[in-house]
């Protein structure tokens, strides 16, 4: 009896192991497919949408700099554009963190009294990322 049981157990263990490895293979395949889809999707974004997005970003830059008439109106449009980008999966990179070379580009650096080295002193241009890809770093002035 115990022999029979142990035989059955062996068969079951074997089956279990095979299923597990099947699952692993399938998972690998799925992961590989997901990677490819993501890559293709990224390439599509780069080729088709990116130029438009960078154009919108340039408009936002101009509004950020705008100090003349109708400032309120201009700012409202800017916020609408930022929202439009966000809805389409494009996030602004935070700049209230201190200099981060993964998302910021030092456009300039200067010593500033009362500011620790690495503090972001000014933001010249907002930065943007999509799915973690920083396609436009924020251009900032960094404290030395």
């Amino acid at each position, binding site marked *: 009896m115990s022999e029979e049981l142990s035989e059955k157990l062996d068969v079951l263990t074997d089956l279990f192991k095979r299923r597990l490895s099947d699952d692993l293979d399938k998972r690998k395949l799925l992961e590989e497919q997901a990677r490819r889809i993501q890559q293709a999707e990224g390439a599509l974004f780069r080729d088709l949408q990116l130029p438009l997005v960078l154009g919108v970003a340039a408009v936002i830059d101009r509004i950020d700099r705008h100090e003349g008439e109708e400032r309120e109106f201009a700012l409202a449009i800017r916020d609408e554009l930022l929202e439009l980008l966000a809805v389409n999966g494009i996030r602004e990179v935070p700049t209230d963190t201190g*200099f981060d*070379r993964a998302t*910021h580009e*030092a456009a300039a650096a200067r010593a500033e009294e009362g500011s620790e080295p690495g503090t972001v002193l*000014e933001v010249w241009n907002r930065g943007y990322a999509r799915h973690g890809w920083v396609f436009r770093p924020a251009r900032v002035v960094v404290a*030395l």
Partner: protein
Amino acid sequence: MGVIGIDLGTTYSATAIVRGPSPEILENREGERLTPSVVVFENGTPLVGVEAKRLAAVLPDDCVEFVKRKMGEPGAAYVDADGKEYRPEEVSALVLKRLAADASMQLGEEVRDVVVTVPAYFDDARRTATKDAGEIAGLNVLGLINEPTAAGIAYGLNKQQSGVFLVYDLGGGTFDVTIMRVTGTEFDIMATGGDRNLGGFDFDNLLMGHVATRIRDQGGPEVRESDKGEAELRAQCEQAKRRLTSMPQTIVRVSAEGATFQVPVTRAEFEELTASLLARTEVTVDEVMENAGVDWDKIDRILLVGGSTRMPMVSAMVQRMSGRMPDIGINPDEAVALGAAVYADTLGAAAGGAIARIPVAVSDVTSQSLGTIALNERNIAQNSIIIPANSKIPVKREKSYYTVQPGQRAVDFELTEGDDEDLRYVTVLKSTELLLPPGLPDEAEIRVVMAYDIDGVVHAEVFLGATGQSLGAVELQRDNNLGAHAVEQMRNAMRDLEIL
């Protein structure tokens, strides 16, 4: 194992591989297709590429850029705070190591075998330095390929078309023009020429000068006085230049002494400012066409390569010269890497006894004449060319010379580079005294054999005519290059170095 092609550029580098029916660019770990050829030493740790460039303005003294211009020259490219010197080969090795690491990450397997591109007119020392950089990076350099040839391959793939190609390559730091004949999968360079010190960098410089003057006009300081100010001005002007490619005007903003200065620049102004640079490229195009013995109606396709050809004034000029539209279709800053990948695939397959997916046959020409110094009929020492410029590589040529005294026991042997007979316009690459056996008659024949291998590296050997006995092989180890021992040491030192 994947064999990749690396376009090691002055300002940007790229890697590509052949996996399917056509080559593809490998993105770096930041998801970019181009990697800035920039190294920043942050507290002694080298940081390479995208993030290094972003940090450059903060650490201008620890930032090394444009190292390709220093390849093959003696001396350090960077000295760290402890006085440790980095040769140009070592800095390039850091870039190559990072490129290979990113490619490995993309491919999911370690990349060791590579093909690296060089400008067509890189001389022997610069080619050797480039190869050494690869070795120091721990890579196995299967071969070097000239950048225009690589670009020709990339463009040739799309359209399976034979004919004469003119490649106009204006990159970040170098300019070259190459005319080649393409027959199916064969690429033969007919003539090449260029300007080692002409590229987008120089367009930036002129814009920088203009903006700096305007800032002073606005009552601002001379921003270029400090390294930091200069670095910032450079970054701002380079970006403004790019914006002027797609927009008719832009504003360059620079902060100095706590104030921000704004300088508006129009495309027309920029084009006027840099007209002389563009004119220099025009002269080179004419020269190379003359060397190749072709005029515009013999040229089937015009390829624009290099990021700087994105500037509208470049295609306008080429169109004006040729009366024809240049080819479009491949990103001008990716073509070289893509073609290098195809060549890498061919070499990799050959090394492994396999068949390449896209086989190509590459033949290049020498960019400089090689020769030796000999006395002419009037007993005046002059340059005697053995391998003329524009000879098809690989090439092996020999020439005989004669001793000037009976029983002569030694000859001075010089290896020269240059097209002129006049020694004032010739570089002596190597000078050595060769001993002769005793008892030679007057006017004993001495044969000099010179060879240029497929990578453009030079070899020379001298033989006694009568017996064929070798008097010595001249290993072209130029003073400007590292020795094998130094390369080995640097390779070991870099093995465990982590690059961010």
